[in-house]
């Protein structure tokens, strides 16, 4: 019985037709265009820089809940919150802190600092989350309303930036659809 079900789902279906799997029609500087069931939609993506909360107090909680509830009530469109949990690439980090001045690199203190940094970073696997809000709309007119609502989230303390530019959107989609390693 189990094998019958398995065969039914996998029969003659080795590779999916890539062009049929995704509904993406085009990517332009402002948005991604998709077409599903003959309905053309614009996909707008907003990157959300999160707030840092270390010691949460009741007043902070109450403020955030009030403002977020206000956002939910005013938002009359369906939306998607997209979260990627990614590992911080330590090698990239070290490349960033390499100093061009050779005298400093030869310095004993600098060497100790670097080696200690390396061990402590390797001991701590650091993961950070990236957040996005994704909106799909049919008419361009709705965009002003949506922008107003989404940017109202900045009252909480988060900063919001719209993903724009064909290349940026293309790279973003490439990393998500190919499921490349989430490494920052």
């Amino acid at each position, binding site marked *: 019985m189990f094998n019958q079900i398995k065969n039914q789902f996998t029969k003659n279906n080795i590779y999916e037709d890539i062009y049929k799997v995704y509904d993406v029609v085009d990517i332009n500087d402002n948005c991604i265009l998709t077409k599903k069931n003959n309905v053309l939609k614009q996909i707008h993506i907003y990157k959300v820089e999160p707030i840092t909360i270390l010691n949460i107090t009741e007043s902070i909680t109450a403020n955030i809940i009030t403002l977020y509830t206000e956002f939910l009530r005013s938002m009359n469109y369906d939306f998607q919150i997209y979260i990627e949990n990614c590992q911080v690439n330590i090698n990239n980090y070290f490349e960033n802190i390499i100093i061009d001045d050779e005298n400093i690199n030869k310095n004993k203190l600098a060497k100790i600092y670097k080696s200690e940094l390396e061990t402590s970073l390797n001991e701590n696997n650091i993961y950070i989350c990236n957040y996005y809000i994704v909106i799909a709309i049919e008419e361009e007119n709705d965009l002003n309303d949506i922008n107003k609502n989404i940017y109202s989230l900045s009252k909480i303390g988060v900063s919001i930036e719209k993903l724009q530019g064909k290349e940026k959107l293309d790279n973003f989609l490439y990393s998500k659809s*190919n499921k490349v390693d989430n490494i920052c």
Partner: protein
Amino acid sequence: MLNFYPAYIDNTNFRYINIDGKYVTTICIVNYPKKMNFMQFMNSMPKDIQFDMSIFVQKQDTIKVLKELTYNISNSKAEINTINNNQIDVDILGKLTSDAKKLRYEIQINNEQVYHTYTYISIKSDNENDIIYSTKKFRSILYSKMLISNVLNFRHLQGYLSTLPFNTLDESITKTCCTNMTTSNVANIFPFYTDTVFDIKGVIFGYTNHNKKICNIDIFSNKYTNSNICIFGSSDSN
């Protein structure tokens, strides 16, 4: 011509899909704790596994929901009056009715709105055995925090497409994963916060007292209001 397409998607195994050599499984959250506190949802997620998560929030027509609720409450009342009190599910029926009444009260008196929410999480790995292990580990961590999840076996492709940033849901997986929530419940799953202080181009200042994680700050980043002064703790803090 679009450049983001993967070279191939292999959907022959019901336990996972293979995209350009990466194994991907998708799970959906089908049940949440009865009382969920603020930040509890994101704190329940394991932070040492790479994953992509999509939370879909869809506002519902309140009047339609109220009509359905009232109809169902009257039906259950009639059923309670007619069934035998020794029946096993009599308590469940009573609980359902009281929950429905409570929801109706919240909508009418506290002006709450009703949302359909769907949560999908895709986990990926380079290794075939590792993906099964990671999925089990992820689910058991969620289960320990009272978040009940289902693996989308046979429907991993639909699950994968739902975890892409297109805001589209496949109908074949929406029925099993739909959860009704009120405005206050959706507000409690506020995700846009972090408990780590790590800027990628920053300098390490030490460890945070709160969770003993590395504190790495780029003081010249735009997200900080003033790069000339940096306060790490309040006065009289340890």
